[in-house]
């Protein structure tokens, strides 16, 4: 089971966390590659339906970041 890698659906705010992720990339910071990032105009756009949809589609984790 150790080589199992989770799939994590990630909703990132365009103005905040997406920028941070971008900056992390530019700064060559390392972080795990398991995130499937969906950029949203604001994390307030993330409806509970989205989170359920992610789980229903088999995501192992969901991360919402503003």
């Amino acid at each position, binding site marked *: 089971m150790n080589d199992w890698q989770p799939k994590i659906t990630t909703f990132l705010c365009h103005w905040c966390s997406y920028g941070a992720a971008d900056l992390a990339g530019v700064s060559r910071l390392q972080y795990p590659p398991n995130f499937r990032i969906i950029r949203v105009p604001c994390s307030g756009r993330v409806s*509970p*339906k989205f989170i*359920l*949809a992610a789980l*229903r589609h088999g995501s192992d984790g969901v991360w919402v970041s503003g």
Partner: protein
Amino acid sequence: MIQYTDKIREIAGRLLKDGTVEVFIGYRKGTVPMMNEPVLIRDPDQVDTLHWDVNCGLNLCNYLTRRTEKIGILATGCNSRNIVTHIIENQIKREQLYIVGIPCTGMVDHRAVKRAVGGKEILSAEQQGEKLIVKGADFEKTFEIKEILQSNCAVCRHRNPVEVDEMVADPVPEQEGVEPYKDVESVEGMEPRKKWEFFTRLISRCLRCYACRNACPLCYCPTCFVDESRPQWVGKSNDPTDTMTFHFLRAYHCAGRCTDCGACERVCPVGISMRQFTKKLNKDAEELFSWEAGLTLEQRPPLDVYRPDDYNDFIK
């Protein structure tokens, strides 16, 4: 509570005659035992069809949505809180309503009664004071009403209406020392897997008839998420995952708004206790925000306000 009936008729007749309201929403006696039918009265001469007893467990607030007349409506504690929620959420204007308050000592759980008589057919159920006399073809049984209350009524802490124009009787004492969230706590103590099994079993009989949704005064969206097709959030079959999605989101949409009126459970044709979902949210709202829905017109519910001191432990 029988005496309420006469008083209700009198009030409704007066309101309709003097033009305070154009329509009056109450109940009439049902055609089968322990079922009363919501009814809309326009004509003061018809107020004698109005009826009140311990089987008025539906939530009349449902019938307010998108109405434009001046309406007289009966309201128990929980119903009045739903009316307040309706007003806060701009589904109806306070000026349109004349709320006739009913101090309520709880509604009878018709399923519990049926269970108590061994599932036999009940031919009549008459309320006499604090007792309910139930008759079938070959039995007669008398119940203390407080023993056969709907489970939400048994733990009710707001029996008297919160927003009224007129009361049909003096307020009743509120129940002391009830523990409304015992069952929630027992689920909270379970392992995730056990919890999942508990809820899967709970809803396994669900037919997706949406009676719970439609009976709920909070569910007034013009298009429910289950009916949306682009994108389609939920499949339409009775697949267990889809059923769970429906119940989960339905409950979630009631967060901070549910008054635990019990209408959803009352109407379920297969007896699912879907309050297990909403009660968890009510408990959280109470613990995290000290909030119980619909107690006041002055304050907006916790999930539609921002306060710097909001609970935010879950955010990293």
